[in-house]
């Protein structure tokens, strides 16, 4: 969806564009530039997250792809800054820089688990509970500073990457299946000062509501992707992109099945103060399907339909 209100005129006048020219080129080529950028963005994401090698992935390749994604994201942020109403959302004061600061390490195969923003309603910073194993870090695996948080929440990266992933994601799974608003609350309280503490009551209120839906949604998303528990090649890059990219309608990341079980604290803790409902309300104008707060995922509906069919049909 490239609706920036630009009319594609054959001449080079910018009158057709409503004053939001942010790409380097004008007119029709601007559309193709955006298209190409989107394509490259998609390809880059797929490279990072669909690769499951037996051996350690090439750090050089990962770095280059990450840089590519960051550059595109920068561009989009600059473009997005011309549309302030999208940026506000429910983020604390400076969402953009916060996101960068709070971003998970991009090189998780060396350190922390990959962060995936896909689950919009995942408001549980589960990973911050799972610190014990992750404290066993060598210098060689050390990335971000460990448990001490100052300001933005940053989960300590576990040293044992793939093993930790499956362990932590298994725990996630278990936690998700058990309604645990209190644990979520406790976790929210545990995570360092800053955004999550700032709005604990709000998150408490909304989390139980968000939990049941997120549970089914996540279990739905989990099923087709069992292997994602051990993403080693993936990076935490996408945590940079969490809310911002969802809010920027240009980027359609919904086609990627991100494994919600490996979404670690960074994304989750950032989203802690944001309730599922608020997110969905923000998203509603941008998605083609009508989204109501109590039915966040169409998949739930189809699954329910399917179950009903099975029950009734038999």
């Amino acid at each position: 969806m490239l609706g920036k209100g630009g009319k594609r005129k054959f001449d080079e006048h910018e009158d057709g564009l409503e004053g939001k020219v942010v790409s380097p080129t004008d007119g029709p080529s601007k559309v193709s530039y955006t298209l190409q950028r989107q394509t490259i963005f998609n390809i880059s994401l797929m490279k990072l997250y669909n690769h499951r090698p037996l051996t350690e992935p090439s750090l050089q390749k990962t770095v280059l792809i990450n840089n590519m994604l960051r550059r595109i994201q920068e561009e989009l942020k600059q473009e997005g800054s011309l549309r302030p109403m999208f940026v506000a959302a429910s983020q604390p004061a400076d969402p953009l820089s916060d996101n960068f600061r709070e971003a998970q390490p991009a090189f998780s195969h060396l350190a922390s688990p990959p962060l995936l923003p896909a689950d919009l309603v995942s408001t549980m910073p589960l990973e911050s509970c799972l610190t014990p194993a992750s404290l066993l870090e060598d210098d060689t695996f050390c990335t971000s500073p460990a448990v001490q948080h100052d300001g933005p929440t940053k989960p300590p990266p576990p040293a044992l990457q793939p093993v930790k992933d499956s362990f932590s994601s298994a725990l996630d799974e278990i936690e998700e299946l058990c309604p645990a608003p209190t644990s979520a609350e406790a976790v929210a309280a545990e995570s360092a000062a800053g955004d999550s503490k700032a709005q604990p009551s709000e998150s408490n209120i909304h989390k139980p509501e968000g939990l049941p839906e997120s549970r089914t949604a996540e279990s739905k998303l989990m099923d087709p992707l069992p292997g994602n528990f051990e993403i080693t090649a993936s990076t935490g890059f996408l945590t940079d992109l969490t809310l911002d990219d969802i809010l920027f309608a240009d980027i359609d990341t919904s086609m990627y099945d991100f494994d919600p079980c490996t979404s670690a604290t960074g994304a989750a803790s950032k989203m802690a103060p944001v309730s599922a409902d608020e997110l969905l309300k923000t998203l509603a104008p941008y998605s083609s399907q009508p989204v109501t707060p109590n039915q966040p995922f169409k998949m739930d509906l189809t699954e329910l339909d399917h179950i009903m069919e099975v029950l009734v049909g038999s």
Partner: protein
Amino acid sequence: ADIISTVEFNYTGDLLATGDKGGRVVIFQREQETKSRPLSRGEYNVYSTFQSHEPEFDYLKSLEIEEKINKIRWLPQQNAAHFLLSTNDKTIKLWKISERDKRAEGYNLKDEDGRLREPFRVTELRVPTLKPMDLMVEASPRRTFANAHTYHINSISVNSDYATYLSADDLRINLWHLEVTNRSFNIVDIKPANMEELTEVITAAEFHPHHCNTFVYSSSKGTIRLCDMRSSALCDQHSKFFEEPEDPSSRSFFSEIISSISDVKFSHSGRYMMTRDYLSVKVWDLNMENRPVETYQVHEYLRSKLCSLYENDCIFDKFECCWNGSDSTIMTGSYNNFFRTFERSTQRDTTLEASRESSKPRAILKPRKVCTSGKRKKDEITVDSLDFNKKILHTAWHPVDNIIAVAATNNLYLFQEKVN
């Protein structure tokens, strides 16, 4: 046969070593010209084959460590035996290759087949004698340099002092002494305190051919740093920084990726160095840091295909480059089993193909041409018909003669200049 992953002549050019993806090293030896065929140039025949590295499993990360040989570097010969360093992603090994053409016979305590003799049968003392035997070439590992690299080793380089060598991985460079395996010194470390901030990695490193205190390393951002080990123990501060300013007119999404340097080689003279990035080869004068003195386009026609090449990962292919013995010509590989040579003084470039169909023994290679504009002439290849799976990443040039070794996937081709 496995995919060849490295090719290297020794200092005299008599031996040519290849390493492959299966961890094997195959050494070829040039046949001596005999009196009966004085004009025949020496052919290379297999001299020794051995398994250098085995696959390992990193239990901590649950990942395999590939046995693929990333680099082989010869040591200068100091006695009858030959020594080379071979490395995979994590471990460097020093191998000794020696010949045995004599066998001792007449031991006192054991029979010819090795069985111990009965003590009461030993009635007299005799001196074992040496008898000739068929030539046997033995390779034995003499040193194993392990556990010094967290990331993947991409380069090794023997110092001109012939006593030390460096090994480089994505973020660090270590200095070793050939005799000491339990200790290595870190001389470059570009790992950031916060790995999130990592945007650049080391891609290649090499010692200066004459100055044992000087080495260079290249990065994924297209920069080369020259370091002097005399200035400090940790050479994080470079002495010289080589970078060509970006051409704004050719900027694209892929500018950074195609600027990533895949190989850096000093000239034999030590005055120049050559870098290979995705589309070009650049020759730098060590005295001029702001731009290269020569730039050669290897396959500029790929510039419009970068998006597809990014998609199929070809854009990350690491091509190597090499100088000839006199530094007058440089060579590098391309796709479709093409490789390119550039004569520096005449600016003449040639594209040749390494394939069975075009390489009949003793036949002269026909220059190839890739058609870049619309109309394809006879014998030209269009860009779209190039086979991107047939890539020539590894080439080597004989240190003295005009003999080149070209690795095309799992085949090794040896070409030499025709002498009239």
